[in-house]
């Protein structure tokens, strides 16, 4: 019995490893290519692991026109979006989690519903409205557009984190003579801080990765975000510098991967929370 079981597990493990290899191969191939010299890259018979790894492609990528400018643009857009979204949505999340008020249900429907709208469907009116206010090809315009998805997401996610705080703690503080605001600052804020960080990071990732709005709204190379910069990295001539493209891809993916590993556990279930228990 236990022998059969062990053999069964061995089979599942083997299958698991095969799937792991297939799953991460594209990521591995990106890294591997970014470290190879051009002869190995253009060879018809690929070498799996880079021989004599080189950082030349990374150097080329970061010295390419607008790399640092566009990284800076992305940083500005992302930080502004996250900061504004976090402050405003934290207030709304408290209202949703702690208060009953008429219109609450409608507000929840809007917050969830907006997140379902396909971005492509909104690009035309957003573009025309921003063009009328001379906000096309400006970072301000992009920040405003990013708030359309960052705000609802943050409200909904933070609501979950605020709910997770036991009411008794807050009440205990109030019995001790604290005002509601005092209770909020001393009890609620420290408890919800990890949730705020996780939500911020997730909003950061979504904005950093965003492509369609940035691509449509930002026309000049020195105004673009880094994902748009990467999408144009194909080279106009016949020779495509795959080494450089993979090196740049790696650099752009790194902050996302690091942040993602940090918060994935906390946030990944936000979209389906309560589905089982509900």
């Amino acid at each position, binding site marked *: 019995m236990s022998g059969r079981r062990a053999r069964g*597990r061995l089979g599942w493990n083997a299958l698991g490893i095969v799937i792991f290899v297939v799953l*991460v191969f*594209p990521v591995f191939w990106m890294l591997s290519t970014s470290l190879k010299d051009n002869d190995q890259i253009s060879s018809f018979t690929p070498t799996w692991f880079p021989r004599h790894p080189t950082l030349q492609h990374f150097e080329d990528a970061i010295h390419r026109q607008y790399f640092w400018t566009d990284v800076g643009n992305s940083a500005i857009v992302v930080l502004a979006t996250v900061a504004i979204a976090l402050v405003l949505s934290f*207030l709304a999340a408290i209202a949703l989690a702690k208060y009953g008020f008429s219109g609450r249900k409608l507000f929840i429907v809007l917050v969830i519903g907006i997140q379902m*709208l396909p971005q492509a469907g909104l690009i035309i009116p957003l573009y025309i409205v921003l063009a009328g206010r001379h906000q096309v090809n400006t970072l301000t315009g992009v920040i405003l557009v990013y708030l359309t998805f960052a705000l609802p997401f943050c409200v909904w996610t933070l609501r979950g984190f605020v709910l997770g705080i036991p009411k008794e703690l807050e009440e205990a503080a109030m019995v001790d003579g604290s005002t509601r605001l005092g209770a909020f600052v001393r009890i609620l804020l420290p408890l919800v801080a990890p949730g705020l960080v996780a939500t911020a990071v997730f909003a950061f990732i979504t904005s950093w990765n965003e492509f369609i709005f940035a691509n449509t709204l930002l026309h000049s190379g020195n105004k673009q975000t880094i994902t748009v910069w990467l999408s144009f990295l194909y080279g106009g001539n016949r020779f495509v510098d795959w080494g450089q*493209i993979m090196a740049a891809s790696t650099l752009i993916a790194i902050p996302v991967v690091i942040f993602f590993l940090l918060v994935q556990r906390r946030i990944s279930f936000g979209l389906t929370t309560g589905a089982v228990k509900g």
Partner: protein
Amino acid sequence: MTGRRIAGGSVPYLLVLPVVLVLAAILGYPIYYLVKLSLQKYGLLELVQHHGEYIGLDNFRTVLHDPVFWHVLLRTVVFTAVNVGLTMVLGTLGALLLVRVSTWVRLLLTTGLVLVWAMPPVVAVQVWSWMTNSENGVLNYILTDVLHVGNYFQHNWYETTFSQYSMVTSLVVWGAIPFVTITVYAALSQVPHELVEAAQIDGARAWRIFKDVTLTVLMPVPMLLTSLSIIWDFGVFTQPYLLIGPGQQTTSNYLMSTYLYFEGFGKSDFGIGAAISILMLAIVAALSVVYVRRMLRVGEEA
């Protein structure tokens, strides 16, 4: 349940007010403008003048009488069905596998899944372009020289619409599996152990236990994931736009999102683009009802 919340007078309204105001300005107004645009003749000239000419429902009539719209709709529906189907089946099988492997393999797989999940879509597109390019892409090499499934030397994967979308599908499904697998796995571990044991004691067979206990308790999760995936895949833009290439988009390979994008920005016919957008948003809104209703229940109960 709702009774446990504080009444609070005007406080909750003051708290939600900033979000409501900002969303009204940056989303409510543009959506109002979208409706207005769809009823107007609005091209480049009108864009410069910031003023369109009212033409009633002409844009909708034009779109609905255009066979291209119906072809694109059909293509998008098929694309969505295939992508959601593959994502859900492979993702769920992945979760079932995670339950059966040893702890270290599970850790390995979970790390891999998170890594894939974290890849920015534009980066993933670049990696796919590199792996599938006809000159020296590793896909052709693997098919020809490692797996020996045929001669794919310098095979061009972007020649036919079907082949293009096989590549887009592989990219989209690859990127979508981690979310499904990890969520279903998390839900699986929430299935009460006592229920499974009780069924075992009653002499139920493994398959019956899975079907009657696990699946029943689990069902809401795949349902939610399926409706989310349908909504996402129906509106997917970045992957088909970039992987097939902005210059290679034609009426014979548009999806809904790229179709409205090129009608609007390519042909500078924003009125028509707006009409297509409204039709698309209406379809997605109809698809979202299930998801929103479910989440609303969660929001009310929690």
